[in-house]
């Protein structure tokens, strides 16, 4: 879509924005998991590393989902006619950074913090600037 509709020189910017927005959207799953986990937390605390293990499992699920989507996008773009090798590396780099951002957005302190949503938005914006600077 980027190659056919947009200008090729803007494609890197589109990719970065798309990756960051996807990471921010997927980070919403952390909150859904956190809310679903609340009634269980006391029960989990009675088990060895119970809360930590469930937290790790939630991270694995969300990062696995994000990684799978990223790989599918990368493979899809690679298989598309007229894909440029330059954009492939931009896409790979942006997907990697967006996964890092996704992992950061899942930090338990951000889920619990009063201004967690604002911190998440600031982190996402900072990641977008960093991606642009790295390309």
């Amino acid at each position, binding site marked *: 879509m980027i190659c056919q509709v947009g200008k090729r020189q803007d494609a890197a910017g589109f990719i970065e924005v798309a990756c960051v927005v996807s990471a921010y959207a997927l980070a919403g799953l952390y909150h859904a998991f956190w809310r679903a986990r609340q009634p*269980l937390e*006391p*029960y989990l*605390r*009675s*088990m*060895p590393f*119970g809360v930590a293990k469930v937290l790790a499992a939630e991270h694995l699920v969300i990062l696995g989902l994000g990684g799978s989507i990223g790989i599918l996008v990368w493979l899809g773009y690679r298989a598309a006619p007229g894909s440029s090798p330059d954009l492939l590396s931009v896409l790979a780099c942006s997907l990697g950074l967006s996964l890092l951002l996704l992992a950061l957005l899942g930090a338990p302190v951000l889920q619990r913090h009063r201004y967690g949503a604002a911190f998440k938005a600031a982190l996402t914006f900072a990641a977008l600037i960093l991606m642009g600077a790295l390309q």
Partner: protein
Amino acid sequence: MTMLLTAEGLGMRYGGQVVFEDLHLAFGAGAVALVGSNGAGKSTLLALLAGVDAPQAGRVLVCGHDLARGQGARAALAWVPDASVAYDFMTGDEFLRMVQALRGCAGPHRALLEGFGIAAHLGARFGDMSLGTRKKFMLAAGLMGDAQVVLMDEPTNGIDADARAFLIDQIKARAYEHLVLFSTHDRDLIALTGARVLELPARDA
């Protein structure tokens, strides 16, 4: 007698009201019934002994391991809360496997599932189960894996007569080598399990 569960100088207060102060307890193997009027602090005490809440003073030792240090104490205990807590989307089988993975223990024997009458509900989702069936899954999760110390909060609440009879057999069978400590208002349960009674005094409002 080897002490399986020890509480030393436990202290807890809520909003200026003292729930426990300098409470000392020591239990070896056996069945112990925690009784007391509503609000006496039975669930609070069980939550402290299970490591769910941290005491404001004192410490709890499970099989010689301090609950506040390391995970050895938690590995030796199983807690059955009064409320049936699980993800609604999980099936009974998935819940038991989750608890098994988290506690690092063996799964439930078929006899345990059949005794509680939940073998037929393994594939049902928690959100679709009755309160009694949920409670039975919580009990099976607590009794599987042969934990040295089993703590149960109102274990007979909501379960049918057959499951209650099976639970009584389980408590009696385990009491020889394990500690089964449960809170209850059910005097028949205490008599049928032959449990020692630990009565918490009523608190002033």
